[in-house]
């Protein structure tokens, strides 16, 4: 009950401190590992989950005013990534695993993800790996609903 109250209160007493600071920005990367093998047998390297398109035309942006489910799911995954660093929970791990796995072709490999945070140090943008998940069988995640 206390947990539910702690989730509800910020919605009726919001802080409204939008973009107070530009915090380190999360990206989710994943790789597939052959079953029973070490991470050295990853199929390909780390790849970004749902990389954004190079260009979007104005009409595509306007279309997304009405219909933008994938991008909103991606924003939710970024929230899960931030929560996983601030207050680690199995819920965040499961949400990321399931939603990354949903967009992958079915396979016998194991799925592993990592959280990379981008931030600015002086004039340079630096990339820091903050979390690496335990590999889990892809088929097992894909069997269940999100």
């Amino acid at each position, binding site marked *: 009950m206390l947990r539910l109250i702690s989730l509800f209160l910020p919605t009726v007493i919001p802080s409204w*401190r939008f973009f107070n600071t*530009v915090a380190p*920005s*999360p990206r989710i990367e994943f790789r597939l590992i052959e079953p029973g093998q070490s991470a050295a047998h990853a199929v390909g390297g780390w790849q970004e989950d749902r990389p954004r398109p190079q260009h979007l035309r104005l009409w595509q942006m306007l279309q*997304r005013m009405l219909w933008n489910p994938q991008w909103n799911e991606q924003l939710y995954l970024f929230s899960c990534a931030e929560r996983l660093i601030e207050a680690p929970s199995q819920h965040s791990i499961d949400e990321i695993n399931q939603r990354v796995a949903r967009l992958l072709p079915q396979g016998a490999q194991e799925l592993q993800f990592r959280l990379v945070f981008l931030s600015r140090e002086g004039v340079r943008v630096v990339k820091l790996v903050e979390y690496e998940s335990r590999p889990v069988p892809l088929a097992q995640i894909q069997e269940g609903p999100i």
Partner: protein
Amino acid sequence: MSGILFLEQGLTAAQAMGWMQLFLAFAIAQQSLEHLALGGVALRDRVTFVSRLLLCLGLAFGLGGGWPVWGLWGLGLAMLWRYQGPYNGGSDKMTMLILSCLSLAHLAPTVFWQEMALSYLAVQLLLSYFVSGWVKVFNPEWRSGSALRDVFRFSAYPVSEALRGLAERRRFLWIMGWAVILFELVFPLALLNPIALKLALLGAAGFHLSNACFFGLNRFFWIWLCAYPALIWFQDRIF
């Protein structure tokens, strides 16, 4: 002339609630359809979103008195639990805030308490702009324009890689950053005049539209619009 008369017009509490419920029905239905479209959605989530769609129909057609609002509030609470927080950050928070205030307005035993619930929403809407401007103006990175450059350069929000190129347009971003800060800070002054308020709300909607185009925050646009009738009523009631 008729345009000016329209801009000067206020809303009664009942009218404001009616408009808010109509907008809210659209915004929540849009959110729910997006969830259902993802595919592979668990049965318990499908039940939640289909129920939300049905309640939105009741809300849009004014059926069931306060029940559709109370039902959507209950489902909003269930979603907070399901996602262990808001699914879509500030837009989900605003959805719950509006539903909470409308729920209380429907439960209110007297007109006074109904007006208190709507006033709370109106003040929170004002604060959503003013506090955002206040925290930015005290941040040297926002004042110099480097914060907005960082948003485009490496934040997760720009919807395409090409938009990251805007980070190099320093003068443009400095002007835009200050335009946003000043607009957010002076927004409460628009309460002093009904025409100024409507124009300020139009400007704010344009601000949310640009955020939706650049950063994909479409749900913010629709849900902030839902709260505007409360502020139009509040201005008319107080000034």
